[in-house]
Each structure stands twice: as structure tokens, then as C-alpha cells.
């Protein structure tokens, strides 16, 4: 199964969580802090976030309750959490039914709160924020259930965060947002947004964001998306992974990857390894490359792992080479870790 050259991943010591992971897309965030030899993990459980810091010897836990702004009495469910790494600072961003919260990276201080306008929606329509990514060196982009992408301008320090732009090109709820992880070719965008219908938009970031290409829906939700060296990797509800050219929106590869709904993709920027996790209880590692002669995009299967009786809802690489990854699943109070020996 695994190509001999790539080496096998083996199961390592898993991490116990204080609460189980919810069945939400991309429900695992990993922040490696190589300088301090620490790795932070977080998953969403209902209205709270489980955070674990691993220092090689042991684990320290922290539960973050979603604090809501305003006078509202009801708790709201979290939809996603992600660390956003900007050159100047790292913020932990939480999305929920009520809005968007930004914390210092350790979750200690809330630096910003953005409420969603619940009243302007018809009652049958779910209201939430979902899809989080740092982009363009100083922005954090967050999607909403009405298809908007809010662009926040993040100062190097302090709480003076502002909405600098609202991107209105999606008609369905945003599912995921990804920034370029490698080197964008000339003219290619550096941000991709995905929605419930499967539409993808490729943007170039800057003072004003510009839409470069729109990849039309084909009837399947795109639950997770990544962007690497001008290649868009998208995971869908029908179990497929599709690779598109970011500049033109052309389909370059189609992988019948999973037997059920894909919940998570991740990409290791230094090697082009792609990680996928789905409800079928499998995680797969793929390798993306570009044929230098033909400029074609190539993809090969490197490794498959069955996480027995677990509908995978989160999967992330733990290092930029993709030599280790972490996985969690619905109803599971554990993060499984795998590494290459």
C-alpha cells in the first residue's frame, strides 16, 4: 500500500482530551512551536474548545468556554477553531452561531469579538460563522453561513482589529478558507474560499481583494480546501479530492479517495504531501507534484490508515514536511498521532 520510498507512518502515543470532538468540518487545529519544542492541539466540543499542549514529556489541558459578547443568555455552539499565524502575531480564532472570537494564541485573553447579525436572516436559516484563515501577511478571513467572507485587518499588536472588506461572491454557506502555503506562481491567487454547494473562489489578497477565478459547483459540498504552489486541493461530500489550477480554475486531477463525506484536508508545504480524513474512518496521505516537462499536476497515494470505528472530523500534519500527523473523530475524547520512523 505505502510506497517503499515514502516510509510507513506508525501510531504513536495518543493524547487524551477532556471532552470529545464534535462532528464538524476541519475540527482539529495544530500549532507547532518548534522553537519551544511544543505542539498545541485544539478541537471543538459543543460550546467549548479543548486545548492541549504537548511538550514531549506530558500534556497540559485547557478548556475554553465560548464567551459571547452582549447580553445574550443562551450559549451558542462553536463551529470551528483555528490558530492563525501572521508574521507579527498568532491568534486563536473561534467561530460560532453568534459570531467570531479572537484570542491570544494560548486562549488567555479575548482580543476581539465580532457579532453576527442574527435578526436579518429568515428564521429557518441557520446562522453561524465557519472557515478561518490567515492571509496576505496581515489579514484574517472568516466565512459566514450567508456566504460572506469577512476580511479582518490585524494590527501587529493590540485590539484595534477592523473589518476591512466583505467579499460577497458566494451564494451558499462558507465551509472552509485556505491561504497559499507554498509559493504562488505569477498571476495566481493566494487565497481560496469554498462553500456548501461546492463553489470555489480564488482571490488575490491586498489592500483590496480581487477575485481571480471561480470554480463552479457540481452538486457536492466542498468541506475542506487547501492551496499549494498554485494548486487548489478540494475535498468533497462524495468522497472525491479534486485538484484545480488556481490561475485558470482548470481541473487537473480527480481522486476517488474516500467512501464517504470528506471532513478534513491538510497540506505539508515543504513536501506537497496532502492529508485527507473522512467519515469512512480512513485517513490517507497523498503526494502532489508538478511534472517539470509537461507542467501537469501529479498525485500519488502514499499511505492509508483505518482509524477503526471513528468518523474522522479532524486531521492535521504536525510538521511542515508532513512526517507526522494527528487525527480525531466524532464522539472521540482522543487525538491519535502517527509518525514516520
Amino acid at each position, binding site marked *: 500500500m505505502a510506497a517503499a520510498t515514502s516510509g510507513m507512518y506508525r501510531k504513536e502515543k495518543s493524547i487524551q482530551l477532556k471532552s470529545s470532538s464534535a462532528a464538524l468540518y476541519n475540527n482539529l487545529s495544530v500549532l507547532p512551536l518548534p522553537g519551544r519544542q511544543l505542539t498545541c492541539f485544539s478541537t471543538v466540543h459543543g460550546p467549548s474548545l479543548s486545548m492541549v499542549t504537548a511538550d514531549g514529556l506530558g500534556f497540559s489541558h485547557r478548556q475554553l468556554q465560548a464567551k459571547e459578547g452582549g447580553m445574550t443568555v443562551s450559549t451558542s455552539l462553536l463551529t470551528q477553531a483555528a490558530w492563525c499565524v501572521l508574521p507579527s502575531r498568532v491568534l486563536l480564532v473561534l467561530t460560532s452561531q453568534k459570531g467570531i472570537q479572537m484570542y491570544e494564541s494560548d486562549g488567555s485573553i479575548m482580543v476581539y469579538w465580532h457579532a453576527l447579525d442574527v435578526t436579518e436572516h429568515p428564521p429557518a436559516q441557520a446562522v453561524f460563522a465557519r472557515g478561518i484563515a490567515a492571509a496576505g501577511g496581515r489579514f484574517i478571513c472568516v466565512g459566514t453561513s450567508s456566504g460572506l467572507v469577512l476580511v479582518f485587518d490585524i494590527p501587529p499588536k493590540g485590539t484595534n482589529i477592523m473589518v476591512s472588506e466583505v467579499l460577497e461572491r458566494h451564494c451558499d454557506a462558507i465551509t472552509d478558507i485556505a491561504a497559499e502555503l507554498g509559493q504562488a506562481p505569477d498571476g495566481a491567487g493566494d487565497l481560496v474560499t469554498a462553500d456548501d454547494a461546492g463553489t470555489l473562489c480564488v482571490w488575490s489578497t491586498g489592500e483590496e481583494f480581487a477575485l481571480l477565478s471561480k470554480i463552479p459547483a457540481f452538486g457536492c459540498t466542498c468541506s475542506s480546501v487547501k492551496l499549494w504552489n498554485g494548486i487548489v486541493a478540494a475535498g468533497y*461530500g*462524495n468522497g472525491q479530492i479534486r485538484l484545480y489550477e488556481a490561475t485558470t480554475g482548470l481541473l487537473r*486531477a480527480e481522486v*476517488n479517495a474516500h*467512501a464517504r463525506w470528506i471532513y478534513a484536508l491538510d497540506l505539508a508545504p515543504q513536501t506537497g504531501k496532502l492529508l485527507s480524513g473522512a467519515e469512512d474512518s480512513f485517513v490517507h496521505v497523498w503526494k502532489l507534484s508538478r511534472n517539470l516537462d509537461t507542467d501537469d499536476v501529479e498525485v*500519488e497515494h502514499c499511505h492509508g490508515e483505518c482509524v477503526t470505528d471513528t468518523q474522522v472530523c479532524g486531521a492535521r500534519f504536525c510538521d511542515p514536511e508532513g512526517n507526522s500527523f494527528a487525527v480525531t473523530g466524532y464522539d472521540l475524547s482522543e487525538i491519535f498521532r502517527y509518525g514516520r520512523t
Partner: protein
Amino acid sequence: MSARTLPLLFLNLGGEMLYILDQRLRAQSIPGDKARKVMNDIITTMFNKKFMEELFKPQELYSKKALRTVYDRLAHASIMRLNQASMDKLYDLMTMAFKYQVLLCPRPKDILLVTFNHLDAIKDFIRDAPGILNQVDETFRQLTETYSCLSAGEFQLIRQTLLIFFQDMHIRVSIFLKDKVQNSNGRFVLPISGPVPWGTEVPGLIRMFNHNGDEVKRTEFTTGGNYVLPQREGSFDLYGDRVLKLGTNMYSVSRPVETHMSGSSKNLASHAKENIVPNPLAKEELNFLARLLGGLEIQKPGGSETGFRLNLFTTDEEEENAALTRPEELSYKVINIEATQEPGRRAELSRIMGELEVAEPRPGSAGKGEELLALMDGL
């Protein structure tokens, strides 16, 4: 999350409740006409027009406790009575069965087929009562109207909302353990073989295209799963083959209702933690209950009808023991009415809750297993 979840949750849990009651009524040899009356009364109440209207209004889901109160009332809509331990067990069985169906349903949209399987079976329970059949068909029509226009993504949000509702429930159910679809730790077994969902390809193929869109390379890989393509899609029509078996009646005389009540100690601990968190929802939840229960028209058993008590356990001793040994953190009890400050609301709820505390048919009579027999003799 999705405000369209409650009708599906209520109807499927209700369907599971009826399967279990039907099986226990037979096991306890309740006379045919009495058993039929109980099923008819409960189904009539469940599909009451006013109640369905409340149910289909867009709204958030509330806690397991709040919903338990609704089923408590529903189960007592006829001449049958259940005590606390049997009601707990009934609710555990219902919730675990539907959790399994939601978890396993191939596409998020297939939750609708699971619901139709329940409705089809309910219609069979009342096939001789055309008036009630019409009520159920009316609900079927409402389901089609509400859900047929939803996208796959919206169905996934409904499924995710349901999974959050069922999260951390790991009660072991003997029928699932015997069928090897549940592990001893309470987690369900996920198959990695059989048909893939409708519209999904069997994993294993990679196709690559050049700049002109021509396929230039094709490779295969092995997944460790053993999947096949599905033969056909289930029917979403009023009558039709649903294909999917999830949501059909899994109980029979040879496959009786039983439960193991313990979760693993770790899971129990997480339950405990959940319960001590102060619940700011309490007020909204009570409003919800008042609205919903207001739509449930309960007919008080008439003077001429003799009531009876249904036991979800094999013997009364078992039932008593279950009541004593049930872990505190798994207790649903009744919602704390003091939580609301509005006197009017509180009075209304007290009234509703009061009505729920139904007396045993003949308190103080013989007791134990003889009680029911005595009742039967009295007919």
C-alpha cells in the same frame, strides 16, 4: 445549528418508542384490543395537527432532558403507565437506536429515508384506523414540503446538529452488542465494506488531466476497505422501496428489548461534568416545552377504562433494581421549574409537570409481578 432538526429528531425517536412499546405489549401479553388502543392513542397524540405545527416551526434543539419530558407525556397518552426506571430505559433505547441510524446513514439526505422507514412502520401499526392514517400522511406531506428543497450541505448541517445532540451517549444496548454493531465501550462499529452512498464512487482511482482537459494518466490504489456500488437509490415518495434498512423495526419476539445500563466510568464522569455546568438555556427551554406540550392533547383515561403498567424489564425486581442503581449523572429526572422567574409561566409548567406525575394504576395493591396479573384478572 440547523433550525430544521427538531421534526426529524422527534419523529424518529417517536418511531423507535413505538417499536419498543409494541414489542413489550406483546411480551407482556397485553390483550389485543388494549394494546391496539395504546398504540392508537399514542400515535394520534404524536401526530396531532396543532402539535405538528409547533414541531415544524424553525427552532433550535433543546437538551435531552427537555425532550425526555415530551416523550414522558407521550408515553402516558393512553391507559398505559410506565414508572421512572422503565421510562429511563425506554428513552435510552430510543436515543441509542436513533444515534446509530444517524451515525450510519450513508448520505446526510438519507436521514429522510430513515424517517420514512419509521413512518411506514407506524402506518402499519394503525392500518385499520383510517383517521389516524390520514394524520400520518399529512405529516409525510409536511416532511416532503419542508425537506425536499434542502441541499446536501443543509442536510449535513442537520446531521451534525443531531450528532451534537447524541454526543457522549455511550449506553450499551444488548441487541446491538449481539449483532456486533456496538462495541463493549458503547461506541458503534463502522463498516468498511458494502455499498458506498448513492452518488459516491468506490475509492481507488486517480485520474489526471492536461491543460486541455484530456485525461493523460490513470492510476489505482488500494484502500483497505471493500466497497461496491449501490444498486439503486431509495425512494423518497409516499409509497416506495426505501432500500435503506436503517430505521426499520429491529425488535421481534425472538429479539426482545434489553439494555445494559452502564457506560464506561470515564464516560460517566463526562456526563457528571456536563450536569454541573449551570444551564442558561433553562428559561428558553421551559418556554419551548410549554409551547410544545401545549400542543399535545392528552385524553385522561376514562372511568370505564382499566389502566395497566408496562415494564421495560423482564421482572419487577429488575426494574426496581435499575431504579436504585442508575447512576445519578444518567438521571433525566424532571427539569427544575424554579429556573424561571415568570410566575405565569411557572404555574403553567407546574400544571403540565403535575399532569405528568401519573399515579400507578392501583398503588398499594399486591405489588411485584402479581400486580399486572391481578389487573388482568380483574378484567
